[in-house]
């Protein structure tokens, strides 16, 4: 913060992440509920697409709550949000490529092992 003092102070005031404990507790309860629900997916022995869809939904909700509230991302400036949250989208390409590769591998294995 070596730039002009007034600006520095103003932006610092803007950026102390002071949020009420009540909000944290609410998110905490929500995370508990979501975790219980995702455990129930296994406990109830749900299978197939229903199981996978529910797992993904609960996972994304939990991840979103943690990043947005506990890690304060929803109160940060866009410049930081974009710098941190956009790059991981590249991973979708990796996931796609490796899924194609794995598909190829298993077909080759079936071919070789004669199943």
């Amino acid at each position, binding site marked *: 913060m070596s730039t002009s003092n007034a600006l520095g102070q103003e932006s610092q005031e803007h*950026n102390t992440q002071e949020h009420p404990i009540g909000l944290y507790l609410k998110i*905490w309860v929500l995370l508990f509920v979501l975790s219980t629900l995702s*455990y129930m997916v296994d406990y109830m022995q749900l299978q197939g697409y229903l199981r996978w869809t529910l797992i*993904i939904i609960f996972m994304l909700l939990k991840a979103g709550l*943690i990043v947005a509230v506990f890690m304060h991302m929803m109160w940060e400036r866009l410049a*930081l949000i974009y710098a*941190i949250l956009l790059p991981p989208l590249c*991973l979708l390409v*990796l996931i796609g490529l490796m899924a194609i590769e794995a598909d190829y591998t298993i077909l080759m294995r079936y071919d070789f092992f004669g199943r």
Partner: protein
Amino acid sequence: MAHLLSEDSQLVKDWASDQDAFKGVSWGKAMMWIFLLSDTFIFSSFLVGYMTVRMSVTEPWPNASEVFALTIAGHHIPLILIAIMTFILITSSGTMAMAVNMGYARKRKQAARLMFVTALLGASFVGMQAFEWTKLIEEGVRPWGNPFGAAQFGSTFFMVTGFHGLHVSAGVIYLLIVARKIQLGHYEKEGNYQIVEIAGLYWHFVDLVWVFIFAFFYLW
């Protein structure tokens, strides 16, 4: 979307400005975020590797629900230890968030105490993981094979949970050091308790990674 990228959007102005792009974000916090971003790629590589082997094995994948089941007081409960570990880690995230709040309110005693509680919960998580590893190793799970099915189960399990456990252990040490410094009043002169928030970012990230491991490795 268009207005985000127009010339006078805050985003474009921040990134196009001299010296610092992250206005009002201290270097400590920006660097922690960038470190966490790099860590995201490491964990993602492990999980994508896991996906690749799991999709390409011809033997059946061991049923995690059964492998991680425990018999408690005569009841056979699937995946129970992992569920308890999940709740412990979420609870530790809650106490960490409260510590950040106390830090900014300049109640340093409470902030330090909450961080010690967080570290204790983290240590108990690692303890349970050690128990889980011991149990599996006794049952014959090895990185190169196991009695339940596809051999790759062991290698991915030890790799993914081991790397995560290492992060939790490092986090416990990190929290203990910061909490001790707060207790001793190292930050009293400056009155700046952002260090709690930065340590908290790391801790919440460890919890975040567990959310993905829990979903993809244990539940899938």
